[in-house]
């Protein structure tokens, strides 16, 4: 997440020839961005550790072990080999090595929801996974609160709200992205409509993720039973928590790919120092 800043400033020697440097991200946005990135990575990995303790998803208030929406498990074949199986809406897929069964430290295929290279700790340890998860959940929420307070105080939310003109330009913007053509010059100062929608969806998805997570707390449910109505029960909340997490994984993948494709160093420098070099539109003969 970031916020566009209007004012361009000239920075003598660092400016590229024929280009400008724009002060794009404030210090607060840069710091909260990187704290958010670290929290998200650690929360995802410790979250998958927690998921592995009961590698299935249900809908409603309670768990229906016979009819999960999604389940991961291992199956012993007649020849003695172990097969990882993922079942989604009753359809089973072989996912050996990644989901359901993957290799442990000794290289043996063992029953596991998600593999050890993507969980914290790498070995099965629900108690420690929860410690990591709740610590960084607090950090994520406090960091997010600072970010959102700044977003409203400095009226930056409008940077992410698409205008009617923006919405009409969605097809054109998709076509531009598909050809990997990125805005240059003054256009690069503002988010395009797809960026706006993507960042806006994260600003919406993160609170949903946090609320769905809180709905899994029996103490929270006693005080705020409406959360259960909102998400359709504790097990639904767990499923929504999972889906929202993977929505954000999808966002991060696209975000990182876009950062790489649209000028990796310039983007990285702008998120570290705040300074973003504007490449002028070149008119080639």
């Amino acid at each position: 997440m970031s916020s566009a800043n209007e004012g361009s400033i000239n920075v003598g020697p660092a400016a590229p020839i024929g280009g400008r440097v724009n002060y794009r991200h404030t210090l607060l946005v840069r710091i909260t961005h990187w704290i958010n990135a670290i929290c998200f990575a650690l929360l995802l990995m410790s979250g998958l550790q927690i998921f592995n303790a009961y590698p299935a998803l249900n809908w409603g208030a309670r768990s229906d072990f016979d009819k999960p929406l999604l389940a991961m498990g291992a199956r012993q074949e007649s020849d003695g080999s172990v097969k990882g199986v993922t079942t989604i809406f009753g359809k089973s897929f072989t996912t050996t090595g990644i989901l359901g069964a993957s290799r442990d430290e000794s290289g043996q295929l063992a029953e596991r929801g998600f593999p050890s290279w993507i969980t914290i700790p790498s070995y099965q340890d629900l108690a420690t996974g929860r410690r990591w998860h709740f610590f960084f959940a607090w950090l994520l929420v406090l960091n997010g609160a600072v970010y959102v307070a700044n977003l409203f105080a400095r009226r930056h939310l409008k940077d992410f709200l698409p205008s009617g003109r923006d919405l009409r330009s969605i097809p054109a913007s998709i076509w531009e992205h598909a050809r990997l053509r990125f805005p240059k010059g003054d256009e690069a100062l503002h988010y395009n409509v797809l960026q706006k929608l993507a960042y806006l969806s994260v600003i919406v998805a993160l609170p949903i993720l946090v609320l769905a997570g809180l709905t899994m707390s029996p103490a929270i449910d006693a005080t705020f039973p409406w959360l259960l109505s909102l998400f359709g029960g504790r097990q639904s909340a767990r499923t929504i928590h999972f889906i929202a997490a993977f929505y954000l994984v999808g966002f991060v993948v696209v975000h990182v790919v876009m950062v790489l494709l649209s000028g990796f160093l310039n983007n990285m420098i702008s998120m570290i120092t705040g300074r973003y070099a504007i490449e002028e539109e070149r008119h080639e003969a």
Partner: protein
Amino acid sequence: MKREAILSRRQILTRVALGGAALGLAGCDRLSNARQSRSVLEAAENLTRTAQRALLAPREALAPEYGPADLSPGFKPNGSVDPDDPDYVKARDEHFVNWKLDVGGLVDKPMQLSLADLRQLPARAQITRHDCVEGWSFIGKWKGAPLGPILNSAGLKPSARYIAFYCADTLEQTLDGTGRYYETIDLVDAFHPQTILAYEMNDQPLLVANGAPLRLRVERQLGYKMAKYVMRIEAIETFDKMGRGRGGFWEDRGYEWYAGI
């Protein structure tokens, strides 16, 4: 030439990133085990408990109760399902007719209550959701004697801060006896109206797999707080000397003492 240079720079960057990720993962495992970083991570538990107790949850807020249509088919037993400790086996074989619950510790009047005594006390029945720390939930109907009035009639001494539950089951074989199940809760939960000593589940006497003759229900916390096979209740000032000193069987094995989330 330039292209090659860029590629190799990309390769370097990729390798640095992959190496960093691998180091990071190993680092997470090491941090998970180091005592100092563990205590940093555990600070979140205090924050959660303080926030849930002081800022959010009114002390009397009831856990949601469900209707008969919401009941789970059966109830998944977890942890010990058939304790083989000799005293328990004997009591079980006698259908618990000679079994008595001990109430002692920091109380004015220690008591012994048979199942018949407990059944004569005012009862509370509730259909509630049981949330396991693993993530699954079951809904069951519980009937039992609220704990608060029992503690009141025993008369807590002013120094009492926690209620400890000593159980019949040994969940892990250990040389020092710390594998015996036990739990502790504070007085906020002990006097909560839904905190009951349950002797019935789904309108039937409690099954051995579900904790017969008596189990604890603490509806605003996770399943591992709800000790099964409760033999003795003690009012205590601190749980430092019990088990491995963290206030419960699973707490001794790294789980949070406050299991409200």
